[in-house]
């Protein structure tokens, strides 16, 4: 793991003589260059991080973090790999939340819209408090999504939650103990597997391949010499 400091990407010219910010990481005050990401601030502060970092690109939701800015009592949420630190900021990473995930055989569902209430009986108990929406770093209208799921508008839910990185920050805040992201995941999968149109062209292509429609062409190109093949490739436009 972190045994060798020679590849330290933080010691780049722009951060060698940076403006420093005083921040608080999980209760401990440290000085870090202003403007680096929350993740880089932890590395800079000498903190080894294993849990809480995944893609570093804003897609995996591993780096769910609570933070507060100077003098503002409001605690906000962010993805630590996508957020810059500023002077006076306090933050702490969110541990994994023990939400319950239903298990299901997606293809075998008979009535996916009704089944939602078996898998997630708490979903209709949403009390409209909007805490989930406020917690979402991806700016999804989570509350609206939960309502739509319950009312069977699976298509809208699947579109709304395309941005969901499964960070889980909508879950601990829910006063009805709903895990909105898991509800949405079930709904999106059900939408795809049961309600989306079947693409005819895809089935046609699969059948063409099975029926050997391209066999002559394959035979032709696979016996070409390297030179012939290169020339043939050049003709493809």
């Amino acid at each position: 793991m972190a045994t060798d400091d020679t590849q330290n990407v933080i010691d780049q010219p722009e951060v060698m003589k940076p403006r420093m910010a005083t921040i608080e990481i999980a209760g401990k005050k440290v000085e870090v260059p202003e403007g680096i990401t929350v993740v880089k601030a932890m590395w800079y502060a000498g903190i080894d991080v294993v849990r809480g970092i995944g893609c570093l690109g804003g897609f995996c939701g591993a780096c769910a973090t609570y933070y507060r800015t100077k003098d503002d009592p409001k605690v906000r949420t962010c993805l630590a790999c996508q957020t810059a630190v500023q002077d006076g900021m306090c933050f702490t990473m969110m541990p994994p939340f023990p939400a319950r995930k239903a298990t299901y055989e997606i293809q075998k569902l008979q009535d996916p819209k009704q089944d939602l209430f078996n898998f997630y009986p708490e979903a209709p108990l949403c009390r409209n408090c909007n805490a989930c929406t406020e917690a979402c770093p991806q700016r999804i209208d989570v509350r609206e999504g939960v309502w739509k799921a319950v009312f069977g508008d699976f298509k809208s839910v699947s579109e709304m939650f395309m941005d969901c990185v499964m960070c889980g920050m909508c879950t601990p805040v829910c006063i009805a103990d709903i895990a909105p992201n898991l509800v949405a995941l079930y709904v999106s999968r059900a939408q795809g597997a049961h309600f989306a149109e079947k693409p005819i062209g895809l089935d046609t292509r699969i059948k063409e391949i099975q029926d050997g429609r391209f066999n002559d062409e394959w035979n032709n190109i696979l016996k070409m010499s390297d030179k012939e093949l290169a020339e043939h490739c050049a003709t493809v436009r």
Partner: protein
Amino acid sequence: MDIHALQQIVHRTRDARRKQTIPKFSPADRDQLIHKYHPDFRASAYRSIRFGPNEGEKTVVELATLLEGDSPIHDDLDLTPQYQTDVLVIGGGGAGCAAALHAQGAGAKTILATKLRLGDSNSVMAQGGMQVSVAPEDSPVTHFLDTLKGGHMENDHALLKVMVEEGPSIAKWLLELGVLFDRQADGNLHVKKGGGSSKPRLVTCSDYTGLEIMRVLKDEVLNQKIQLLEFAAAIELLSDDSGACTGAIFKDLDNQRHVVVAAKSVILATGGIGRLHIQGFPTSNHYGATGDGLCLSYRMGAKLAHIDTFQYHPSGAVYPEQLIGALVTEGIRSEGGQLVNAKGDRFVNELDTRDVVSSSIIRECEEGRGIRTMSGRVGVWLDTPILDAEHGAGTVEKHFPAMMLQFERFGIDISKDPVLIYPTLHYQNGGVKIDTNSETNVKNLFVAGEASGGLHGRNRLMGNSLLDLMVYGKRSGLTAAGRAGSMKQGKLTLKHLERFRAEAKQHGNVSGVISPMILPAYTRKVG
């Protein structure tokens, strides 16, 4: 210099550029450009591997050093297994999930072990899409030829043929699991055109293709109750007397203990090496992309292919500083985004292959036509507002929501302002050599996904990786599972390590590092 002032030239020259078409390079010019500017041709960055299956072949210094590195395992380690399984899948990205699902689906007891959480990988970040020849005017043969051309004719024909032919049925499998690919009005899959491809062939889920596929696959791994070991980093493989693979040793990253898993066969799906930052490049890769699978297989005696070539994605963010190396999807160029230098000129056909486009960006910057940021980095403009100008207001926002959000967080509206980009280390073109069942020359050791090599030749076309993962994930899973029934668990030994260490000794143990790396050393030593 203020970047906002410098970007005015992009706005000023937009109308004139819109009418321009830039021809693709002729094969001769293209070769010359690549040889002069592509990082793969910087001889000083390379050296020969001193011993092992690829002795005498060249690769980048960073990788050669790790390949020759010593194992963290002492030869007296107690090899009594904590777990016993038919199929052990190492890696929780796309290839690993696909392999585990197919292996378990075929009736084999399967364990999926991964370094970080399930799904934390490169696969979730794929934005551009997956190549599948579904359009009526397209065919698997055309897909094959395009890929071959992109790979400089060095792709393994057998591997490639299997991939393009199984593409459509893989798309069907994913649809049945509930993956929401974009559709046309008539319900057919919507396909986009990617760089280096002659036909529109990219199936997409908005610009969240990898995220959508991985959300579904992860959920399915949990639904199928596949046994998971998370925060478990593979640090050594196990072999029997005949050299066949029989399991692996992991380090539990929570408590640093060793965990031994006995398996009838092992599927390595550990992904690429971006986090080695070869030649000092920034990278688009996830935290754990440290090439572990290459080191582990190499010590077992598996042969590697094409490990002297890497993909530098043309468009890594250069500004703002927080996004350094992050990917600006190729989809922007596919839809007409133009590359513009400091003088306001276009300099390459944006849809040429990645190696050509990257080389030309490096050329512009080295010849002084790049734009320098306050922090001293250099890049060229990618004209993103042109998409709204061409296709109507709101296009960028509608087609690239992930990218909009990523930049918006730092106060940049990419539908109004161009972004500054420079090539970023993106993909390992080569890897462990496999056959069409995904098996290596080491019996019962399978490698799938980015860790494997041969299929993409010397340059991978956009969108072919996601397909590669699913096809060879599936094949490795099915083959390994098929074998499990009729097979006994092999003996757990470290014989291969004895052999490797003896060889290293002969060569003076010069590497001086322990491999695999597991995680990059970013933590600053304080005090």
